């Protein structure tokens, strides 16, 4: 059992535990914290695959910026524990078996038919210079389109989150 496999299993166990904890917890702040644990462990998996830059971005953008936004909103809205309703019981009754069947089928196909060649540690060093070359040369158009997308998202968030009375007063 190589060190690589041990580290993979360690980070994978943290991922699995965090994902299951997200489902089990009833309070949104606990779910958010376990999601942060999942994202941090995934950054470790990216490091094992040799994608250092992606791992850094994962910690900074995902576990940092996006999850801080989530935690802010949870605290701002003072979200409490969710109550069990008729809809959630029906969803558990049909959703969980269906998804588990699909997951087992997918896992079987992956184990049976995918290439099982091992991925060596640091197989593909992803230095920022090469990623930048790809991003600003081969993927220049999608990159520019994402800038428009982010601009639209900023304006949409401002418009949606502003209080309606404030905009009405301004219109008059």
């Amino acid at each position, binding site marked *: 059992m190589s060190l690589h*496999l041990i580290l993979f299993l360690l980070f994978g166990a943290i*991922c*699995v535990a965090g*994902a299951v904890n*997200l*489902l089990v917890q009833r309070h*949104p702040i606990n779910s958010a914290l376990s*999601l942060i644990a*999942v994202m941090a462990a995934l950054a470790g*998996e*990216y490091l094992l*695959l040799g*994608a250092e830059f*992606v791992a850094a*971005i*994962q910690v900074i953008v*995902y576990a940092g*910026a*996006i999850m801080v*936004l*989530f935690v802010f*909103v949870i605290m*701002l*809205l003072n*979200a409490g524990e*969710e*109550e*069990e*309703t008729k*809809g*959630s019981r029906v969803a*558990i009754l049909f959703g*969980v078996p269906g*998804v*588990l069947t*699909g*997951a087992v089928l*997918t896992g079987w196909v992956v184990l049976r038919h*995918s*290439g*099982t*060649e*091992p*991925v060596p*540690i640091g*197989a*593909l060093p*992803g230095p920022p210079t090469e*990623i930048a070359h*790809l991003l600003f040369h*081969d*993927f220049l158009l999608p990159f520019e389109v*994402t800038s428009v*997308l*982010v601009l639209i*998202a900023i304006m*949409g968030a*401002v418009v*949606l*989150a502003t209080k309606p009375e404030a905009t009405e007063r301004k219109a008059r």
Partner: protein
Amino acid sequence: MVPLSYYLLLGGFLFACGVIGFLIKRNIITIFMSIELMLNGVNLSFVAFAAHWHALAGQVFVFFVMVVAAAEAAVGLAIIIAVFRTRETLNVDQVNLLKL
């Protein structure tokens, strides 16, 4: 040395957990976090395939997924705040009218 299928199985498990959370959770914020979990599972598959096929483009796609996730989080959380302001609940079962 870890087989590629292990990474794919972990990514698939995270995706399945996200789908289950999306279905069984009634809190709109937790449903939103389940979507983020699904995106993370897909990202892991992207990076694993990039390392397996020696194609750096897979890592670039992860950036685009992250940008879309960030934009989605910004707009979605603004919508959640607007919904909470008008209905004063976060339970999706009680949000069943297009217009109040």
